[in-house]
């Protein structure tokens, strides 16, 4: 068995806290090897040591049998290690081929850029890994998948032998994920490249990877082969159990409830060409899922309910009154809250503390005369810190010092404090680890029991299956189906979200 990478007895401490304890990991050549663990398990630290970003305290790293020690990312790169980070590092205003060669532009003689050579080499790389993207297209015009693929193709261009992919599929759904994995598959089988894949999405890990290594609290839990001796695949719940040390995926979150009267009804809603005549009703205490693949229009649909998009036709009725929220501020006053997608861009106010982020929606509630009373803010923040189990040392710390899951809970808290009648949750567990995910599901269920009407949009079929009473499936702006809880299955969702019908 030939190993591309062996890391043995890796130790690392930050100011006295051991974040990696004698971690071993061996990656076979030509494999897609998954590395999973909750936030703070030590995945990034381990990969940063491998990529030459951080030094280790003790341990040994063997790359293709040769002992190595990288003092800088450049040194790691030289030895054929490519690190593709979670955030896309592409420049929107440059064509694909210039992005491929960014910082390493080919020149002809006196500093003139050799566009033709760069295009030829780009075409060549794309052909090798079976990618169909126009090298002269502007990156701005590409979808998220193609941007991600360009990042991966870049490492092929520079002859990487070991590619580290840090959550490359976070912003992708269904087919797009498959596309990225097809490219990865081509890389490993045709080019002999080895891939280390960090992910929170266990479905992908099981479906596409050869082996998985699980870390917990800086320690190695186990490395498992994905296909067991009897040919069966490792279960996601097995991996999740190893990650959190307890049975979480099996926990039943859903509880049957009595639904109240209709709180929101949408009639023939159009939003430009993104949403084409969608109608539905939402009851008090109901959890309604809306799902579909990228470009399905679900974001525009909920955007219109929250006043962030402008409907071109149709009516929205809340509590029997027609409403037309022109901006999010109107929606807030109407008792509608939104937990948006992409936390960093849309939900986090980085310069403010945890408390201030929690109270931003309800500032008027803490005022006496003209003056904001700090004590009132702190009191409510303490209360919701307890209720949502937010892990933070001091509430006066900046929100950006929290982990993704805790940040998401803060964002959720700011709306819960406002006590909305209708709460829209867009990708509520995006970039959140397994443990926090379940806590958020429980919270959603609690809210529903209190009678809040809840809309959950998500690209993950599993997620809507887990918590929703009813699911609407969208495809290119049309509602292609409505599934009651009993009818929910990944298969039925997939058929409807690709434009098919269940054919009754």
């Amino acid at each position, binding site marked *: 068995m030939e190993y591309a990478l062996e890391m043995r007895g890796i130790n690392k401490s930050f100011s006295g806290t051991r974040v990696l304890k004698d971690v071993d990991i061996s990656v076979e050549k030509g494999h897609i090897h998954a590395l999973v663990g909750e936030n703070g398990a030590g995945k990034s630290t381990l990969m940063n040591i491998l990529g030459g970003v951080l030094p280790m305290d003790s341990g040994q790293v063997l790359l293709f049998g040769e002992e190595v020690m990288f003092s800088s990312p450049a040194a790691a790169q030289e030895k054929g290690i490519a690190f593709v980070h979670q955030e896309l590092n592409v420049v929107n205003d440059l064509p694909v081929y210039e992005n491929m060669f960014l910082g390493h532009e080919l020149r002809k003689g006196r500093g003139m850029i050799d566009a033709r050579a760069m295009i030829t080499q780009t075409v060549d790389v794309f052909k090798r890994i079976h990618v169909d993207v126009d090298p002269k297209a502007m990156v701005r015009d590409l979808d998220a998948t193609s941007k991600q693929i360009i990042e991966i193709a870049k490492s092929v261009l520079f002859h990487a032998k070991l590619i580290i992919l840090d959550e490359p599929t976070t912003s992708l759904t269904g087919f797009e994920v498959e596309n990225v994995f097809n490219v990865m598959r081509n890389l490993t089988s045709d080019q002999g490249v080895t891939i280390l894949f960090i992910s929170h999405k266990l479905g992908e890990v099981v479906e596409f990877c050869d082996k998985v290594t699980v870390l917990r609290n800086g320690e190695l839990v186990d490395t498992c082969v994905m296909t067991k001796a009897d040919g069966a695949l490792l279960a996601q719940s097995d991996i999740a159990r190893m990650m959190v040390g307890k049975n979480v995926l099996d926990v039943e979150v859903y509880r049957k409830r009595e639904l109240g009267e209709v709180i929101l009804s949408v009639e023939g809603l159009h939003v430009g060409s993104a949403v084409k005549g969608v109608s539905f009703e939402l009851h008090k205490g109901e959890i309604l899922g809306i799902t579909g693949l990228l470009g399905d229009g679900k974001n525009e649909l909920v955007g219109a309910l929250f006043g962030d998009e402008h409907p071109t036709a149709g009516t929205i009725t809340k509590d029997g009154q027609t409403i037309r929220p022109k901006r999010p*501020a109107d929606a807030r006053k109407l008792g509608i809250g939104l937990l948006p997608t992409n936390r960093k861009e849309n*939900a986090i106010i980085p310069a403010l503390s945890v408390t201030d982020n929690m109270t931003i929606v309800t500032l008027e509630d803490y005022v006496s005369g003209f003056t*904001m009373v700090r004590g009132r803010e702190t009191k409510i923040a303490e209360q919701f810190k307890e209720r949502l189990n937010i892990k933070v040392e001091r509430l006066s710390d900046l929100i950006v010092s929290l982990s993704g899951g805790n940040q998401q809970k803060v964002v959720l808290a700011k709306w819960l404090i406002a006590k909305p009648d209708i709460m829209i949750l867009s990708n509520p567990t995006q970039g959140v680890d397994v443990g926090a995910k379940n806590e958020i599901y429980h919270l959603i269920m609690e809210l529903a029991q209190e009678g809040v009407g809840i809309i959950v949009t998500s690209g993950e079929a599993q997620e809507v299956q887990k918590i929703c009473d009813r699911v609407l499936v969208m495809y290119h702006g049309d509602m292609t189906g409505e599934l009651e809880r009993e009818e929910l299955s990944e298969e039925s969702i997939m058929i409807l979200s690709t434009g098919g019908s269940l054919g009754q």
Partner: protein
Amino acid sequence: METEIRIKSSAGGFRQFTKNHGIIFITIGVIVAATIAVWIKNGDPWSFLAAQNFINILRANSVTGVIAFGMAFVIISGNIDLSVGSQMTLVGIITFNVINVTGSILAGLLTAVLSGVALSMICGFIVTKGAVPSFIITLGLSYIYRSLSIFSLNSGGITVGDKAFQAISNTSLGPIPLPILYFFIVFLLYFYISKYTVMGRRIYAVGSNQQATRLSGINTNWVKIQAFALLGLTVGLAAVIEGSRMNSINSSSTGNGYDLNTIAMAVVGGIAMEGGKGSIVNCLFGIIILAVINTSMTILGVNVYLVNAIKGAIIIFAVLLLRSRGKLN
């Protein structure tokens, strides 16, 4: 064991203190440097440190200082205003005319404040509705204000007949000239707004992440217009303080250079150009630093043509120093 922990935490406390209050050390440094320079120049170690000298420094910079507090809010909200100097001149001319026509100083005061706020709110409206960088809009406005001022007075000046008007800025409360008092009242008011009001909190939020603030159900355009209104209020007050002190406004020279001077005060005071960050207390120190630099160069008799070169160098140095401290921590 216990003592060890205490020592550690007190060291941490000191580091935290210098990190948060580095501006105090820079202020002290600038004052010490100015003292030594003046000492060398005229042989008297106490001439710069005399209380009267500090009163002079503050009085000379009270007008730009007042505007700097307003500028701080606009910068925190993620914008900038390059028109305050000429806006102050135009507001002053309107005010003087109102006083001369109505004979009422009170009417003049109201005019100054209202027209200052109104002009800035219009500016904020254009910036937010047009979604154009405030840099461009306020550059254009500064040309408009200055041109209208010069046109209205045919490039001359204007004075107020009523001598009582001069009392506003030329009276002292004990040893303290009133402009200094106005300056500190504005400081206290704006400090209060920044720390203890809904408006203040929202201005910080908008500057830090506009999109997230909007999606928190806040009308972000209105918040930005409010920040401009706070600046407009200081411009109106500044027009009265300056106009009363000089009892004249010159359509082409009054307020020249005030835009960049007030921006420099705010930025040296740690108000970050990227928005969302900075405190009004630190801004006060930024104003004092610039004030000390302005005045000490006059005392030192630095060649007038060189003053701005030295000032520019000191501003760049001070901001770099603050930045590198921030990064280190």
